[in-house]
C-alpha cells in the first residue's frame, strides 16, 4: 500500500478529473446548471451545499454513474461521455472507489469478502484478494469483524469496511457521498480520520460530498454547490 504518483495524462484544466459546464435535469427540475469542477491527484476536495443543491448529482456525474445532459467530464485525459458502459465499469473497478452514506455493502458476503470483491472482479486470485482485504480491514481497525456479515456490525464499522473496500484497489479517485451522514459524531470523525489518512497514504484523490463543516475540515479545498452551480471557495473554479 504505497503512495501512488500518477503520471497519466491530465484532464483539461490540469486536474486528474475535471468537469466543465455540467447541466443535468430530472424532468423539469434542474439539478446541475453549469457546474464545473476539478480535482488533482492526491487532493481531498469537499463538495458542500445544502440538501437538494446538486452535490450528489455532481459526484455521480464525475464518477460516470450519471450521464450529464451537457458539459464535459474528463478523467486522465479521457472523455467519460465517450466511454461505453463496460469501459466506465472498468474505471469503477480499477480507478474509482466509492463510499456512500450507507455502505452499499453486499449483505450476503462477509466483510472480508466485501473488501475483496473489487479485487476479485479484476481477476485477483481469491487467496491474494483475501490477504489484501485483511490488511485493509486491519488498517481501518475492523479486522475483528472480517468474518461478520454487514448486518451483524455497527454503522461505524460498516462505513470503515466500505472505506476499506473503496481503497483496496488503490483507486486514483475516491468518491465519498456523505460518508458519515449516518454516524454519530465520534464514529464519524474516526471514519473520516481513517479515510483521509488512507487516501493520503495511497495518493488517492477524494471527492467528499458533505453538508457538515466538521467533515469538510478534513479536505484541502472546498467547493460549494448552490442552485446547480459549483463555486470553489479558494477561487480555483
Amino acid at each position: 500500500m504505497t503512495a501512488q504518483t500518477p503520471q497519466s495524462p491530465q484532464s483539461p484544466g490540469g486536474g486528474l478529473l475535471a468537469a466543465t459546464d455540467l447541466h443535468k435535469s430530472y424532468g423539469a427540475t434542474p439539478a446541475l446548471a453549469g457546474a464545473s469542477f476539478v480535482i488533482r491527484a492526491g487532493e481531498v476536495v469537499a463538495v458542500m451545499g445544502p440538501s437538494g443543491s446538486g452535490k450528489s448529482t455532481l459526484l455521480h456525474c464525475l464518477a460516470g454513474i450519471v450521464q450529464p445532459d451537457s458539459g464535459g467530464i474528463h478523467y486522465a485525459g479521457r472523455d467519460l461521455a465517450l466511454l461505453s458502459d463496460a469501459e466506465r465499469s472498468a474505471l469503477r473497478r480499477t480507478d474509482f472507489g466509492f463510499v456512500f452514506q450507507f455502505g452499499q455493502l453486499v449483505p450476503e458476503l462477509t466483510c472480508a469478502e466485501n473488501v475483496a470483491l473489487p479485487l476479485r472482479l479484476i481477476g485477483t486470485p481469491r487467496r491474494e484478494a483475501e490477504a489484501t482485504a485483511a490488511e485493509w480491514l486491519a488498517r481501518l481497525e475492523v479486522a475483528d469483524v472480517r468474518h461478520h456479515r454487514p448486518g451483524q456490525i455497527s454503522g461505524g464499522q460498516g462505513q470503515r469496511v466500505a472505506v476499506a473496500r473503496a481503497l483496496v484497489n488503490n483507486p486514483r479517485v475516491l468518491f465519498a457521498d456523505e460518508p458519515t451522514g449516518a454516524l454519530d459524531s465520534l464514529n464519524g470523525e474516526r471514519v473520516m480520520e481513517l479515510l483521509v489518512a488512507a487516501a493520503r497514504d495511497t495518493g488517492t484523490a477524494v471527492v467528499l460530498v458533505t453538508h457538515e463543516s466538521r467533515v469538510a475540515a478534513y479536505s484541502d479545498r472546498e467547493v460549494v454547490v448552490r442552485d446547480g452551480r459549483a463555486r470553489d471557495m479558494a477561487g480555483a473554479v
Partner: protein
Amino acid sequence: MSTLRVWARDLGMGARFALAGGRSGWARTALTAVGVALGVVVLALAASVPSALEARAQRVEAREPVWAMDDSGPGPDTFLTAGGATEYRGEEIGGLVLQPEAGAATTAAPPPGLDAFPGPGEMVVSPALAELLDSADGRLLAERLDHERVGVIGDDGLDGPGDLYYYLGSDALAGEASRATGFGNPTFGEPLTAAMALLVLVICVGLLMPVAVFIGTAARFGGERRDRRLAALRLVGADMAMTRRIAAGESLAGSLLGLLLGVPLFLAARQYLGTLRVADLSAYPGDIVPEAGLILLVLLVVPAAALTVTLFALRGVTVEPLGVVRHAEGRPRRLVWRVVPLLLGLLLLVPLTFRFVDADDATLTQAGVGIVLLLTGATVVLPWLVERLVGALRGGPLSWQLASPGGSSWAVARRPAPSAASPSRWRRPPPSTCSSPGSAPWRPPTPARTRAATRYRSSAWTPRERRAPGPSATWRACRASSPPWGRSGARPPASPTSRPPR
C-alpha cells in the same frame, strides 16, 4: 483471465449469493429448487412413458400363447387354451384356462411367472387378484372363481402390479379350445392408443405449465434484495454482462439443487405410481425408466428454462450502480403478441377435433404444440384481460386500481382523504407535501367524502392522469412547485431505486 474462468467466477459468485442470501435468498433458492425438481419429476415421468409402455407391451406379449399353426395334432409340448377373461364391477379380469395335452408329463414351457402348469381345478392368481378375492369387495368374484388357489403369478407374468389375472388348470378342454405350443406371441403387443397418447401429453403439459409459472414466481421472489445486491456489484465495477452472469449463477444454483432434489423425488414418485391403477393400467417401478436421450434433454432443458426465466425477469430492467430502474412500469400491456400463441394453439388443435384418429408422430406433435401454445396464450392473455376489465370498471377496491394500466403509481400516489373509521391512518399533510396534480386539497373528513374517497371515484381519474401516470411525472411536478431549499415534502411513492439522485 480466460473467458471460461470469468464465467466460472461470476456464476460461482451468483451461486454463493443464492446459498448465502439470507432468509429471502434461501427461500428463493429453495422455491426455485422445488419448482425445478417438480419440473424434472414431471418431465422424467413423461420421458418414462415410452419405456413403461414398451415394458408393458413386452409383458403382455410374453404371456400370450403361441398358437400351433399347422394341424400336427397333440404333442408332448402342446397345450390347449381357452379364454377366461371376465369383468367384475367394471374391472377387467384377465384369465387363461390351460390344459397340457401330455398331462403331467408335458414338456411345454409354463406361462411366464409360473413354475409349472396348474393342475386341473387349480388356479394361480396375480397378487392384485388375490387381494381382491380375499377382500369383502371381491366376495362375489370369489364365488365365480371358486377354484383351489395354489400360487401367485410372479412379476414376469403380469403387465403391472395392478394386473388382475389368473391361470386355471383344466382337463376338460376340448373342441372350442385352441392348441398352443408355448408363450411369447409378439403380435399381441398393445400399441399406444391415440387416446392414451393424448392423455399422457395433456397430463404432462398440464402439469408443466404451473411448474413453469412456479419457477417464474420463485425467480422473482426476493427480487428487491437481489436488485440491491446487483446495484452494489455495479458500483464496485461489475458491468452489465457480469451482472447478468451473476444473476444467472444465482438461478443456476437453485436449478442444480432442483435437479439433485428431482432424482429422489422421481424415485419416490415411481414407487408411488407402482401402487396406482388407472384405466386398467399399472406399471412396475422398475419399468418406469426415462429414455436416456430424453432424460439428458430434461437435465439440460430444465435448468436452461429456469435460467431463461431469470434473464427474462431482468428484461426491461437496467441495473445501475445507484439502483435498479424498471422501464416497463406503468406501461399498458399490449395484446398483439399475447394473442398470437393463443390463436396458433387454436389453429393447431381445432383441426384435430375432426380427425384425431391415429397417434402418429405428426398428430401427437401437433396436439402437443397446440396444447402448449393454447395454455401459454391463456397465461399471457389473462393479465391483459384483467387490466382491461378493471380499467373499464373505473373504480373498485385498491387491488383493482393497482391492476389497471399505470394504476399502481396513480393509486398509491393519490392519497385518500382522511377516514372517519381510521382517523390515525391518514393525517393532514403539511403544506409542502406533494400530491398528485389532480388531487383535492385536504379538508376535514366527512362520512360522505370518506366513502367517496375510499371508492376512488372514476371522476377523479382524468384522461390526463391515465396518459401520464408515472411516479416520476408526479414527482417532477412536485419538485418544480417546491422551494429549491429545504424541501421537506414527501415524495409520491415510487421505486426507491428509480429515484433521481440529488
